[in-house]
């Protein structure tokens, strides 16, 4: 009776009635939210949300809208992917936003042009030796800064046993200090042309998608992923099973740090500037994207696909609000409610599934 490709006997197992994947719920939530905006747009604005009803783009979609929906969440999305693996391992990273700020400042200092409109660069931070350097230099330095911050997080968490919340909160405060100290608060602008390209146009989207695919594969098909889930599920079991938990945690946080560094590079390139206040609160958006995408804050469960869907939900909400010309106050109030509703929806499906 029992299908031996699934197990080894015992109860009846009806493979057709397996629970569908969590990601499907989130996708439905995404469609639902789009549907609501489309409907409201139709009735309130006499306009379509996603479709090109005014013939502006020569396509059935409002391409400008599609682009901005993804573009505006790409950078936080990159961070969210790093955060996803951290949360799966039952950790948390509150430092990502501040690390983005500090890294952007530092990387940008090495990406300066010598001349702006024929005058010497007015914002350069380090002097002329750091001008007109090849793009590899700021990129490498940016990734390295992120790596370093992540590594410190990881070592603190893995080897001193303090909770990730505290270690990364400390890093958050420290990195915020660094980003203000670096140029005494002055912003740094005017990057080289090659640096400008990293974040121009749809490049942030391309990078985000690339990172997402890579980490989807890493988490699903490699030792790295398996051990990350194992640690998040039961850390002491993982240790007793012979996983080098401490070393693995250092790796997880270091990788998350590198992704923050990457996000900082893309962000400062896209905005053509770095300033100390950059990245504030990104950590919360990133965590929210992951959780809306079904990553469990108690560890052990979640996926990159879910997080990407969570990021898209964010993007749709932001664009939808501007589309509806909602007052900024209401935008915030409703955004709070939608974050909650998206997750409630998901729980509700779970609940129904448990009744079948």
């Amino acid at each position: 009776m029992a299908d031996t490709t699934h197990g080894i006997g015992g109860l009846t197992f009806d493979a057709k009635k397996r629970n569908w994947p969590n990601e499907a719920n989130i996708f439905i939530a995404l469609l639902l939210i789009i549907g609501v905006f489309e409907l409201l747009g139709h009735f309130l604005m006499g306009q379509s949300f996603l479709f090109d009803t005014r013939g502006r783009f020569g396509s059935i979609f409002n391409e400008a809208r599609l682009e901005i929906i993804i573009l505006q969440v790409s950078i936080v999305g990159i961070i969210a992917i790093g955060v996803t693996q951290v949360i799966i391992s039952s950790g948390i990273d509150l430092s990502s936003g501040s690390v983005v700020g500090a890294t952007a400042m530092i990387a940008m200092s090495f990406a300066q042009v010598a001349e702006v409109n024929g005058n010497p660069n007015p914002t350069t931070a380090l002097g002329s030796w750091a001008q007109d350097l090849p793009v590899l230099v700021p990129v490498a330095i940016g990734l390295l800064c992120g790596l370093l911050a992540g590594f410190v997080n990881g070592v603190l968490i893995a080897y001193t046993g303090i909770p990730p919340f505290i270690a990364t909160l400390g890093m958050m405060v420290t990195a915020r200090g660094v980003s203000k100290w670096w140029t005494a608060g002055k912003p740094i602008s005017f990057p080289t042309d090659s640096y400008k390209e990293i974040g121009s146009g749809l490049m942030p989207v391309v990078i985000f998608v690339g990172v997402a695919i890579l980490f989807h594969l890493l988490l699903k098909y490699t030792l790295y992923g398996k051990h990350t889930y194992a640690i998040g599920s039961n850390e002491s079991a993982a240790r007793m099973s012979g996983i080098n938990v401490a070393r693995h945690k250092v790796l997880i946080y270091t990788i998350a740090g590198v992704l923050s560094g990457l996000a900082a590079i893309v962000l400062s390139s896209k905005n053509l500037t770095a300033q100390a206040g950059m990245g504030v609160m990104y950590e919360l958006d990133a965590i929210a994207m992951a959780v809306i995408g079904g990553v469990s804050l108690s560890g052990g469960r979640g996926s990159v696909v879910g997080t990407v869907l969570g990021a898209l939900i964010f993007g749709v909400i932001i664009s939808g609000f501007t589309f509806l010309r909602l007052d900024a106050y209401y935008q915030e109030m409703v955004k709070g409610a939608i974050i909650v509703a998206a997750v409630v929806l998901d729980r509700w499906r779970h609940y129904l599934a448990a009744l079948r």
Partner: protein
Amino acid sequence: MDNDIVLKTQGLTKHYGGVHALQDADFEIRRGEHVAIMGDNGAGKSTFVRQITAVEQRTRGTVWFDGREVEFDGPLEAREAGIETVFQNLALADDLNVPDNLFLGREKIKFNLGPFSILDYKAMREATLRGLEKTAVKIPNISQPIRNMSGGQRQCVAIARTATFHSKLTIMDEPTAALGVQETAQVENIVRTLKASGESLILISHNMRQVMDLCDRIVVFRRGRVVANLRKEETDGQDVVAYITGAKTQSQYDVEAA
């Protein structure tokens, strides 16, 4: 040291704050020998296991394994040295499925890329089904997270994990406590296989019949101390119970009187 001795402890002691969970335990086991540890609840049996597998840091005492003094830095080192353990709390990752748990920490790999090595899911699945068959347990869908397994199913996964790999010393802490009639019989068979292939075993159990069936020697713990070391041929169930309850203590262990 006698080269035939796999594991030996001397003065092994563990205090938790004011609780003296293990006090001056002297213990040894020879190659191929199967030794049972019995004793009341809270007598310190699992504590003893946690010290020799380095899950915790001992308060004091010395441990020799495989001919040399050891200070394992954690259970990973203990396992790498050749000690396989089924812990009483089973040590399973609730969100992972059965094959993932079975191969936790020694996954089968397709391409070796260090920490980013590609997993060989198919091979692990198949090996899991083979491994579990030996325990006679039934699991309708091994892709379900371990969280959803019954008490006995969980225990069988933990046992299969140990039984699938060869070792110098196997430790099982109450392995059949949650098992059904058939599964218990199968696990006892697994233990006999170990005996046949000359592997040493420490078996912790409250089941007198099982202990008498499977082991060569019985060590009794009481109140954190070793109180008896009995060859199976020289004792019987009633005698062992007398040591467990405190009615008797072997003279060489009688510190309480002193």
